[in-house]
């Protein structure tokens, strides 16, 4: 199994930390992982993205042009990465703020109202965990017990009291994810 993922959105949405928790979950089940951020002179409110690869085998290139899964969380990311999903691959997005919905007909598309859900839960910071829950519902590539371990490893100790809140957000995401189109 090799899963090549791009996660993209606004800076501050928790894109990088979502990727990190996913990667750490892979480490917890002794898989090979890589987490490659876009770094650089990024603008506040600009875009942030990270390539995460989880595999049973040694990982070759940590940077890619085509992905099995794209998790796209704003319009700019949709414009940039919709075309990079491999035919038959998966696109997961949050329709909040999206004016141009995905057009591809050769990929599976899911949506998750994560921003709205996180606001409803009065925990907007757990937005990324709602998205993670949605993704893991569609592709359970890592076991939930390892996600919980990954959360513990990724968050500094002083934030560990927030782990239950994040776990709630993950299970909420699993519940509300909706199929848009299947191939």
């Amino acid at each position, binding site marked *: 199994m090799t899963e090549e993922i791009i996660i993209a959105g606004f800076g501050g949405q928790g894109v990088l930390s979502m990727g*990190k928790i996913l*990667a*750490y979950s*892979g*480490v917890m089940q*002794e*898989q*090979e*992982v*890589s*987490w*490659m*951020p876009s*770094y*650089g*002179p990024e603008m506040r409110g600009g875009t942030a993205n990270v390539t995460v690869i989880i595999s049973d085998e040694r*990982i*070759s*290139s*940590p*940077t*890619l*042009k*085509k992905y099995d899964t794209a998790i796209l969380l704003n319009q700019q990311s949709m414009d940039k990465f919709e075309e990079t999903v491999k035919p038959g691959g998966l696109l997961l997005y949050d329709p909040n703020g999206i004016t141009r919905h995905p057009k591809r007909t050769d990929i599976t598309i899911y949506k998750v109202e994560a921003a709205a859900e996180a606001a409803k839960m009065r925990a907007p910071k757990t937005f990324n965990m709602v998205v993670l829950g949605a993704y893991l519902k569609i592709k359970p590539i890592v076991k939930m017990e390892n996600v919980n371990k990954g959360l513990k*490893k*990724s968050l500094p100790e002083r934030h560990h009291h927030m782990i239950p809140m994040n776990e709630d957000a993950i299970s909420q995401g699993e519940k509300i994810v909706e199929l848009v189109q299947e191939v």
Partner: protein
Amino acid sequence: MKELRLMKGNEAMAEAMIRAGYDGYFGYPITPQSEVMEYLQAERPMERTGMVVLQAESEVASINMLYGGAGSGKNVVTSSSSPGISLMQEGLSYIAGAELPCLVINVQRGGPGLGDIQPAQADYFQAVKGGGHGDYKLIVIAPASVQESSDFVKLALELSNKYRNPVMILTDGAIGQMMEKVELFPHQPRWTIEEIKEKKPWATFGKPADGERRIITSLDLLPEKLEAHNTHLQEKYRTIEKNEVRYEEIMCEDAEYIFVAYGLASRICQKTIQLLRDKGIKVGIVRPITLYPFPKDILKSYASKVKGFFVVEMNAGQMVEDVQLAVECKEKVGFYGRTGGVLPTPEEVMEAFEKSFK
């Protein structure tokens, strides 16, 4: 028990410094390697092992702090990125001349000049051919993963002391910034004063009552004496070339074409050869791990067996010259590179290869 962590290359190198038993780190912040000192400051190595971490006022100061620390027999390290490493070249030449063991890490970014902060491999010539003045060589090691970033910090301590020679880890912004699974090696203690006295009798730890004053210098105004020193250095480099060549062969057994790439470029090429093998083209990779000493012999041994070589670098073509020398121009050596911090994609490398060998 295995100690597995998810770490950035920069963090893994910093943790490895503490675990390998380095005595001191001196550095000045620069992107994309600032996490090295950030991690060290947060970890408080003084409390863990007694290791000193000091932010110098500039890269020129850091490299000369290394000269002082290494001269007194301590195991010392600095890290920087391309423009900062350029500032260190005078000091590096002095350190090589004075035969001081130490580690310098270059997390390369796009150049020339201030360039940008994205990953590049454009400092290859500077690292392996000199950079500073005079006939000297650094041992240059190029990690291709976070795991190797950690392991090579420990290896550098061994090699630098074995040969009394500075070692450079030549990596890049991508390997520094990306996170991978890393298995940390167990702590090894810092050298005691007794060990330093035994293993580095030349070091300036104080004049013994029955011994001579020790002077560490690269200055020798008598040409014949300086030539004798140079002859000694060259003999040492020949020994290093004989003993320390390291490389990895990937799917070379049945290969008709050999890719040559190091560091991040070699990782990108691993994807490219998968794509090419899916098309039925038999390709393999020789990945130099030591850039100096360069794995000439293995490349030469393939020269009569394969149809060609293809070098991929994140620069305009530097190591390609060493590959041409190694294969004595007996086979075609193709090249593809991206510069200025742009990463080549596996697909475009494949296209370039197919164009080169159609």
